[in-house]
């Protein structure tokens, strides 16, 4: 994965595409959308209780680095921000991070986890995602490229991994076409149609069996191409509609390809031997390119601006990334029976997404500018905890395994460049994902520490190595610090990006006094305890 980062130069060419987006950036340079977010959230919170105040600079700098750069800030980065007297410094930092080299890596990690759900990694796929976020590719284009992958271009071919990994046979099981269908609905439309596979959904009136079948007919027609060495997906000829019937009433029905809520796509008929743009070739195993390609047709319909579910799902997921909870929650339960917490806000965000042509940076920027995003995470004292869907205080956000890894490296001062790991980088990343990621196919939404993650932090060599003293690293700096107050300040700023409270500083002092004869062990234990703390493992 990190080697692909180094070869990134090859794909910077793609960022030319992004320049056409700069007009959109300028158009949304005001904070109009941010203001509307705040109005909507304030109106809704009125009945629940007061809004928390703006978070302080240390809290903000940690939060925004984690969200946009995928890691905590280093001590110099944090101090530069905290000590700056520029009244506009938050806006400036947001813009700086959005154009930093960390940003595409961060988005790669987040969308890789979201779209592949820890099914596995692939170099072509990573290259594709990274280049896409480097170029700030519009989401509708990105989604189209994934839903109808083009194997003819090196830069785009990795997109097929979304399909090929799901079309892989696992052991003796059949190819999971229903699973692929379900994931297209969940991840691109926010609709989990699986319970509508065999009958209209029992609890969700809006999910019809025909909705599932209209997508299923497309994906059960696909296969993994065997003539290419990289992930690539092919389509068989489609000559007739999909027949289906409800397991309840057994009435025969049929549908052609159709996006849920959209129009059925006619299946064109061709003369014998006229079905292909490029005919199959048995010698090379080339499967041929049919004239009618349902994947292409669906990719167009599904991502069009007239498909409200597509835009709503997109902004809901961006909102979730930044705010820790979807306006529609769970993220894949978008339907009338599960209304969004802020219906008009979701609509405004979706419309804004269409207006700025699915420009991810612009939307993330507007969310980050809002007072809602910049709210303090501490609960009001005494009162009952506000409901998470009111956003009266900032919600805690689960960190990805990659965010935790990069932050551990920054906190412990293990590497100069936090996005790169020396030596066995990929193996190390895999170890963090194994410890902190969910099991394959399980969406990573809530904070879920496990026995795996605790044993990893307690005993794994990777963590222990980061805590070995080396010139200039955290443990070294703490060991060299002359008094307890400096140890406490350096420790809390490095790991938690904040000053210790008086109480915390006193505890450090006390612990160091008791262990005066073994200072290095003592500061190592202090550093470990903060790395293993809930405060470090969450973005808040």
């Amino acid at each position, binding site marked *: 994965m990190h080697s692909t980062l180094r070869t990134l130069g090859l794909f910077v060419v793609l960022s030319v595409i992004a320049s056409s987006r700069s007009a959109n950036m300028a158009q949304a340079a005001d904070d109009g959308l941010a203001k509307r977010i705040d109005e909507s959230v304030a109106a809704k919170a009125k009945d629940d209780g007061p809004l928390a105040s703006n978070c302080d600079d240390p809290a903000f700098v940690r939060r925004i680095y984690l969200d946009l750069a995928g890691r905590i800030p280093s001590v110099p980065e944090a101090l530069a921000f905290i000590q700056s007297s520029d009244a506009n410094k938050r806006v400036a930092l947001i813009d700086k991070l959005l154009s930093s080299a960390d940003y595409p890596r961060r988005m790669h990690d987040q969308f890789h986890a979201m779209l592949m759900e820890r099914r596995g990694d692939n170099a072509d796929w990573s290259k594709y995602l990274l280049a896409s976020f480097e170029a700030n590719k519009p989401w509708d284009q990105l989604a189209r490229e994934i839903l109808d992958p083009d194997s003819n271009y090196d830069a785009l071919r990795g997109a097929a991994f979304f399909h090929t990994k799901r079309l892989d046979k696992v052991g*003796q099981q059949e190819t999971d076409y229903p699973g692929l269908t379900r994931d297209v609905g969940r991840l691109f439309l926010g609709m989990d149609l699986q319970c509508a596979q065999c009958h209209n959904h029992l609890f969700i009136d809006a999910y019809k069996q025909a909705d599932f079948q209209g997508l299923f007919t497309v994906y059960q027609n696909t296969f993994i191409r065997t003539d290419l060495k990289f992930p690539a997906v092919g389509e068989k000829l489609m000559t007739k509609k999909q027949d289906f019937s409800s397991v309840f009433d057994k009435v025969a029905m049929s549908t052609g390809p159709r996006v849920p809520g959209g129009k059925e796509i006619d299946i064109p008929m061709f003369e014998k031997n006229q079905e292909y743009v490029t005919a199959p070739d048995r010698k090379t195993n080339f499967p041929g390119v049919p004239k009618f390609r349902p994947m292409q047709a669906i990719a167009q319909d599904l991502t069009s601006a007239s498909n409200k579910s597509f835009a709503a799902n997109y902004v809901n997921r961006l909102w979730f990334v930044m705010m820790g909870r979807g306006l529609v929650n769970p993220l894949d339960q978008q339907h009338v029976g599960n209304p969004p917490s802020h219906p008009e806000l979701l609509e405004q965000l979706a419309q804004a997404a269409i207006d700025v042509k699915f420009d991810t940076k612009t939307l993330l920027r507007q969310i980050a500018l809002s007072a809602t995003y910049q709210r303090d995470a501490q609960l009001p004292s005494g009162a009952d905890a506000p409901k998470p869907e009111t956003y009266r205080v900032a919600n805690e956000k689960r960190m990805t395994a990659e965010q935790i890894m990069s932050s551990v490296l920054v906190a412990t001062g293990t590497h100069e460049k936090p996005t790169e790991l020396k030596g066995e980088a990929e193996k190390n990343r895999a170890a963090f994902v194994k410890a902190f990621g969910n099991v394959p196919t399980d969406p990573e939404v809530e904070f879920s520490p496990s026995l795996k993650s605790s044993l990893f932090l*307690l005993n794994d060599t990777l963590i222990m190595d980061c805590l070995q003293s080396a010139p200039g690293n955290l443990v070294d700096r703490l060991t060299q610090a002359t008094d307890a107050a400096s140890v406490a300040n350096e420790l809390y700023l490095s790991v938690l990006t904040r000053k210790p409270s008086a109480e915390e500083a006193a505890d450090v002092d006390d612990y160091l006094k008791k262990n005066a004869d073994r200072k290095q062990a003592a500061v190592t234990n202090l550093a470990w305890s903060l790395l293993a703390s809930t405060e470090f493992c969450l973005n808040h």
Partner: protein
Amino acid sequence: MNNSLCKPWEHRLSRRQWLGVTAGAAGVVGLNGLPMPALADGLKRKYKQILFVWLDGGVSQLESWDPKPNTEFGGPFRAIPTSVPGVHFSELLPHTAKQMHHLAICRSVCTQDDAHSSGVDRIQRGDAKNRGVIYPYFGSAVTKLLGPNDSGLPPYVWIKPLSGGFMHKDAGFLGAKYGSLAFGDGKPPENLLKHASVSDQDLQDRAALRALADKRYSQTHRAGSTEANSFVFDMGLELMKRQDLFDTTKFSPRDVERYGTHDLGRHMLQARKMLEAGVTFVKVNSYGWDTHGDNFNGSLSLVSRFDQPFGAIIEDLAERGMLDNVLVIAMSEFGRTPRVNGHLGRDHWPEAWSIAMAGSGLKKGIVVGETNDNGTYVKTEPYDIGHMFHTWFNAIGINSEKTEYNNAGQPLPIAHEDMHPIKELLA
């Protein structure tokens, strides 16, 4: 997991919930470092536990619990008397036969699937009525329904040959956290050993300092996160203290001899130690029971290797008074054909087979159900795996006909609703 329709979105069990559930079961203390035999009473835990022995591939009922010597399909082995007059086992079960007064055997099991690939899952998930959801394995079900205990140890462990890890697929719609922690070849999970650079004092300090940091954080943030974090650290530290569960070199030589030095013997002995340590559900696996060829030599070796540790663990659990609360089950995905095939093997036979049980909630020393004279079919009321799930749930105090799962708003019966507990088995 892709096929798991209708996923649940319930919240993680927070530490507070765990503690709430176990409040009634308080009073049992840890047993670290205490000598075992002297503490027979101390080992009696107040909560229910399960030992589930899975003989993968299909043990032959005729060479084990339901011998038919001198009949058409009976095979070469004799039947021997057991500790209960009138009840006979195959002569391949001499040790277990001595424990029959603790056992409950069902000889009228009749199930639906004769394929391994689907059968293993169907049987262990209880073969509930198909609603398009994937039901949990019995271990995941029990872990969910009984709730956590106060041992601080993982609730559902699986001791098996080959590889280990976290087996989330067991959990079905309950969600990954109810999966099993598998100890491959009885080996501990990754990272259980304290790192060489960390002293005992360091470890103790780190645990205390982390707890303090989390306590501070929880004063101004929602409690759920720190509760969940503390829970997994406490469990990790607790399990680290129990390296003895994995260090086979320290097992008592007498126990090793009684249980057998082979894998299954070693794993069964480990299972006893896990139960003593307080794990709720311990599954022990043995592979290679699919005796399509040379069933009789195969059974001679396999059943004997099962008999020795199974007899030993029943004896030990009984002696320690643990059978009052520990439910023991030994079974496969199906039985084997009475008819012997051309390779002197027996094939898959779900029509008429046996399951051996003991302990919590069950009658002692009884045989329920009967097959016909040559063992081909069940003569009495046939019992499917759904009846067994009902029975086992009730044996550990869960009313299987009233209790339901809540799968994201969808109520689901915990066992097949057309079936019922087997009254003759229940105490």
